[in-house]
């Protein structure tokens, strides 16, 4: 069971990467992990660094994937984002943004992608 969930998550991340690349984003980091938590994707476009949380669900579940990015998850992502900014040599940027991408699978090769730009603000 754990494996299936994990697999769906991985699949979702891959889908999100190709989706973002199609939109012209450059991938900076994938699964950036610290001891505070993890950011699924960190991408870059138009002098903006975007921290992306990818949520994947099977179509059958009654819950919307975006619902699970609640204030606690937001705080976690904010904290990791701060660590990332401290750690890395950053490309020249003007803006930072937190996005959420939700993916719902309704069978093989059929998916619904939703991209929430600026989904939330830095939470603390």
């Amino acid at each position: 069971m754990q494996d299936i969930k994990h697999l769906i998550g991985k699949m979702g991340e891959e889908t999100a990467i190709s989706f973002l690349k199609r939109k012209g984003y450059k991938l900076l980091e994938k699964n950036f992990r610290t001891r505070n938590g993890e950011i699924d994707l960190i991408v870059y476009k138009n002098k903006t660094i975007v921290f992306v949380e990818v949520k994947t669900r099977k179509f059958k579940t009654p819950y919307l994937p975006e619902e699970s990015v609640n204030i606690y998850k937001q705080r976690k992502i904010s904290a990791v984002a701060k660590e990332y900014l401290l750690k890395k040599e950053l490309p020249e940027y003007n803006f930072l943004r937190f996005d959420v991408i939700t993916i719902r699978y309704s069978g093989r090769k059929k998916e619904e992608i939703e991209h929430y730009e600026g989904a939330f603000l830095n939470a603390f």
Partner: protein
Amino acid sequence: MLSKILSAGIIGIEPYLVEVEVDAVRGLPSFTTVGLPDNAVKESKDRVQSALKNSGYLLPPQKITVNLAPADIKKEGASYDLPIAIGMLVATGKVSAGKLDKFVILGELALDGTLRPIKGALVVSDLAKKLGLSLILPFKNSHEAAIAGSGFVYGFNTLREVVDFLEGRTEVSPAQVDVEKLFEKESKWSIDFSDVKGQEHAKRALEIAAAGGHNMLMIGPPGTGKTMLARRLPTILPKMTLEEALETTRIHSVAGVLRSKNPIVAVRPFRAPHHTISDAGLTGGGQIPKPGEVSLAHNGVLFLDELPEFRRNVLEVLRQPLEDGFVVLSRAKTTITYPSRFMLVAAMNPCPCGHYTDPYNPCTCTPLAIQRYRSKISGPLLDRIDIHIDVPSLRYEELASKKEGESSEKIRERVDRARKIQVERFKNLKGKRKIYCNAQMETKEIKVFCQIDDESENLLRVAMEKFGLSARAYDKILKISRTIADLEGSPEIKPYHIAEAIQYRTLDRNIDL
């Protein structure tokens, strides 16, 4: 980038300038409000963001800090929405800061970017005028604000309109109000004393109360017209001067009870709070201090129906406003003063069942019950009520009679004349305390102005002995007879003035059973 917008806050009824500083920098996108905001101000973050988005302004994600200076005064209410929104637009470079330092901006935002009315527009307008600044506020408040002066008040319906105006894309003419005309138009009554059938005795007492500014208590069985009479008292009081009207309008503005179409209180207010009112409701106060009923009744009439039903502590807080004409609310952070010069008119039943003085219905109360009922009104409060009268039940003939009573206008002419005599009398009085009417006299002044001859003295002595009147009643009777004499234009107090005045002290008499 940093932007600075001027706005205003209100403590009591005093406005002060607030600087809304908005700083937008790169960094993790966030939105923080500092400068002692209360919850309504903190929530403005979400309103502002929605309103900006729905007005078509897409702001890049940035770290935004809003500071409301001076930082040591608590800011409350939603009126900082508009300055914050404009500040954000300036800070992110969407609007040029050009002439922004010439404007005081206030307004609550709806999520779709329209502006909702705010409280205290008139008071803020006074401040803007004093500082030589222009004022931008919701259109619904613009008439009210323009009362303070014309040529510098601009009203808008939406956030977009404000931005277009600031950017110079549209010309907007300042709001204009002809205060004199508005005042004239609004100072009309829809009720009149001629509506009241019978009760000549009570009408006369009301006339005296109006003439001398005396507080008054009406005692009578239910349904005898106490409320009807009280409602008509403001119609016979001297007409409000424009200055008085503006004073009262300011208080109503801060309390947010003005109508946006005719935003001036041109007739003396009549406030009749329900007897379940709390002390904070009566004098003002609360976490966010708001003027209470006594202040809303400033320059008018406060009517307390069913006086003994009011909670004791509520009645006791009336003492200071009755004495001084203002309420002082001391809080840990600030001390607030609200003006509250009003005439108190109270009504009560003579006993719990209501029929003690009623010749047609028998009273079923025990003497103890009556005593207990009446003792709910404390001596010190009673001390401040000069006139007590009985309002008896009416008989059928009086009710059905076609005879029209006297009109308010006629009565008011007499009242005006009596007031003029009083103003003249107290004009040259030395001392700090200013006196305008007989009711404000204290023992010292009574000695000077209420001299009576031997015959009157005699009458008064007999009455006091016969009715068992208290010492308190003595001064009151002299004060009332002074007013009765003034109404007649008589310089001395005559025995029959005293005789009439004695009738107006019902409660000082012993209860005879």
